[in-house]
């Protein structure tokens, strides 16, 4: 045991070692002394850290407080914990030492000392993890339950810890298992066709607890989405714009997972969106533009009473093989004044990315630098239809799928093939929806100076909101 514990030179452990002289006398069991002897070097990994210590005196109490901040950092669950000692950071810090000993490790290490000394530690860890697991499963149930309808607002915060704990669910399996039957029912429907041969593995994954199961149903949804995008499995209930409500439902686990777990999207200002149609004009980013579907999902969750929004996709995306087809089935409409007018006439919020391909085609080093705002078509549209323009800033899309390079896309009929990560990175997203822009009285779409100044106003407002969001951001992934 002792030898296994020498996993690194944790500063915290070293501190404990310095104090070691004081410790030996106290230990009643054989256990603690051995660990001490093996050394101040040894550090029984973070997991056991602190666990054996508490039993002894108050001395051990002090070090954790001092060193705790440095402790988690090297473990690098997240990039930059120090800058903002926000509540999240605090929360993370405290759990870090505690939860790791959850069940399996606690079983191997703590049980021995507990007989008498370990009472307190044994007691404290065991209550700690279960609540977290339950929280996870509950927040899980939320998104899954609301697949069809209203967004049961899953607590936004818990998601942060859960992310750091992704490996944990295994131990906490017993409590997490309850929700699986319901989920199974839902998942099996769309899974049936997708997962023919993978039988046993699929079954285990589906019954897996918590986040893992959620991730699996997201993968199944992704498979379904890809098949729809390939044009081999079209639905039968489409509206004239090409949105397939059934497919959207089937893909919901994926969207839910990306939205609430992976990107942890936070929306601010959704109340600004008026009923009766509006143009939401946003910055555009990411090698593959996920900002459209995410903003769409944000409105669906935050403003379920509004008619379903649609986002306008530039031709290069709309007619990209697979992606364009899939986006169309999920609610993208090819960007054209005609389509937008029709959508606005139906009272829908219309999501517009005036940067178009320039926004998603800019290199990563130019992130959050707004490109040319088209030719002001959205302003003309707003003036013609008398609908308000709402500037929207989206933070996080840039880092999610950074554009690392471009390959020629000729044979596929796309301007270029983006080179990016294999999977979207879990950058933290924040969406801020601003207030409607003021329209000069009597403004006409034919007045180019008015159009230009309104384009500029929209652009600078978005830029300003972006700066605000970026300034307040603690870390790309932490948010």
């Amino acid at each position, binding site marked *: 045991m002792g030898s296994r514990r020498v996993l690194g030179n944790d500063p915290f452990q070293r501190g404990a070692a310095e104090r070691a002289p004081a410790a030996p006398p106290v230990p009643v069991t054989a256990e603690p002394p051995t660990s001490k002897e093996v050394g101040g070097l040894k550090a029984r990994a973070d997991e056991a850290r602190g666990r054996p210590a508490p039993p002894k005196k108050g001395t051990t109490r002090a070090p954790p407080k001092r060193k705790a901040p440095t402790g988690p950092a090297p473990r690098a669950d997240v990039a930059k914990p120090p800058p903002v000692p926000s509540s999240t950071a605090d929360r993370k810090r405290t759990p870090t030492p505690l939860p790791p000993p959850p069940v399996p490790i606690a079983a191997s290490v703590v049980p021995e000392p507990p007989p008498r000394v370990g009472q307190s530690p044994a007691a404290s860890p065991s209550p700690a993890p279960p609540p977290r697991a339950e929280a996870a499963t509950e927040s899980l149930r939320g998104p899954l339950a609301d697949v069809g309808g209203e967004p049961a607002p899953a607590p936004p915060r818990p998601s942060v810890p859960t992310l750091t704990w992704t490996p944990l669910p295994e131990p906490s399996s017993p409590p997490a298992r309850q929700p699986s039957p319901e989920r199974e029912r839902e998942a099996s429907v769309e899974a049936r066709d997708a997962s023919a041969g993978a039988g046993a593995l699929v079954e285990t994954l589906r019954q897996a607890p918590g986040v893992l199961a959620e991730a699996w149903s997201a993968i199944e949804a992704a498979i379904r989405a890809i098949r729809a995008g390939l044009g081999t499995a079209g639905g*039968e209930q489409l509206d004239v714009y*090409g949105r397939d409500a059934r497919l959207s439902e089937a893909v919901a686990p994926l969207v839910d997972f990306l939205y609430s777990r992976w990107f942890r999207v936070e929306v601010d200002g959704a109340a600004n969106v008026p009923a009766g149609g509006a143009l939401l004009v946003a910055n555009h980013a990411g090698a593959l533009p996920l900002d459209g579907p995410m903003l769409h999902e944000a409105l669906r969750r935050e403003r379920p009473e509004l008619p379903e929004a649609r986002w306008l996709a530039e031709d290069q995306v709309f007619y990209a093989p697979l992606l364009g087809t899939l986006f169309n089935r999920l609610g993208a409409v090819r960007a054209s004044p005609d389509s937008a007018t*029709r959508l606005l006439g139906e009272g829908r919020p219309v999501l517009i990315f005036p940067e178009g391909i320039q926004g998603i085609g800019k290199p990563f080093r130019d992130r959050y630098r707004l490109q040319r705002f088209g030719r002001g078509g959205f302003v003309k549209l707003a003036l013609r239809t008398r609908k308000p323009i709402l500037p929207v800033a989206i933070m996080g899309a840039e880092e999610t799928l950074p554009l690392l390079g471009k390959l020629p896309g000729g044979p596929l009929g796309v301007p270029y093939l983006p080179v990016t990560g294999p999977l979207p990175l879990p950058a933290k997203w924040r969406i801020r929806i601003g207030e409607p822009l003021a329209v000069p009285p009597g403004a006409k779409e034919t007045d180019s100076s008015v159009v230009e100044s309104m384009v500029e106003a929209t652009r600078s407002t978005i830029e300003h909101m972006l700066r605000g969001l970026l300034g307040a951001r603690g870390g790309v992934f932490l948010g």
Partner: protein
Amino acid sequence: MGQQRGRSLRVAITGPTSEFGALLLPKLLAEPRLAQLVTFGPRPVTGARLVHHRVDLTRWDVESELESALSETPVDLLYHLAFLHGRTRGAAFAHELEVIGTLHTLAAAVRAGVRHVVVPSTTTVYGARAGNPVLLSESAPLHGCPGSRFVTDRVEVERQLETFRRDHPGVGLTVLRFAPVLGPTVDNPGTRYFRRPLVPTLLGFDPLWQAVHEEDARELLLRLLDAPVSGTFNVVSEDVLPLSSMIRLAGTRPLPLPPPVARGMLRALNSAGITATPGTLLDYLHYSWVADGTRARTTLGFQPRFGVREAAASVRS
């Protein structure tokens, strides 16, 4: 119109054996109000109250033939249905029949004093293009499909009809742009496409299609007997389907090919003389071409009994 009382309908049809002709003729002959039916076509058709004139619309002197026949037995309504629906007997012949034939027919109709002309067209004349709006209205430009004989001729016919409408405001003209007409009996490029055992499509694309069931198409043509409204109308299903779903409903399977492969194969087959399908026709498998049927619904009262799903499924038999 005075057609309401007794046997008062005097109707003429060009191309009674064409796709729409074959669809319309039996119902028209069964129409109790029919007083006189005049047909013009290369193959004879028979029926009560029917006078058939054997004409070849590609002949240079066909115009006077048509005119004298129409003057002998005056008609109120002329269905100009003489368009090819099968595989072509050569592009030059097809062009003569469809484009020049329409020219002759319209000129003869004016001189013989026909009051109203009905001409079927197709929504393919809009072209399947990246720039298409969500719903193509009747005023959308007709881009057609460069390279496709079938579509190009229809676009040219449409141009002539437009000119005719401008030059002869006194003659009513109804142009019906049909979405692919599908059904158990019709035979046209659309039904042939959906009756293949493996239907080639483009991998990564699943454009939106519309269709009209043959019953609904016939119903609308007949409806014009009573209420011949001038204008151009999209005759389409209210709903749309992705191509892959239509193929599945039609009882076959899609064969998705990567677009470059599909184009290459088609080019090879064409140059080998096995097929004569222009590569540009693949655009209809690539981009959506969805037409807005609102005008036909509100103005003509077109209410299809069958949706696009039923239309696609009707190809099966």
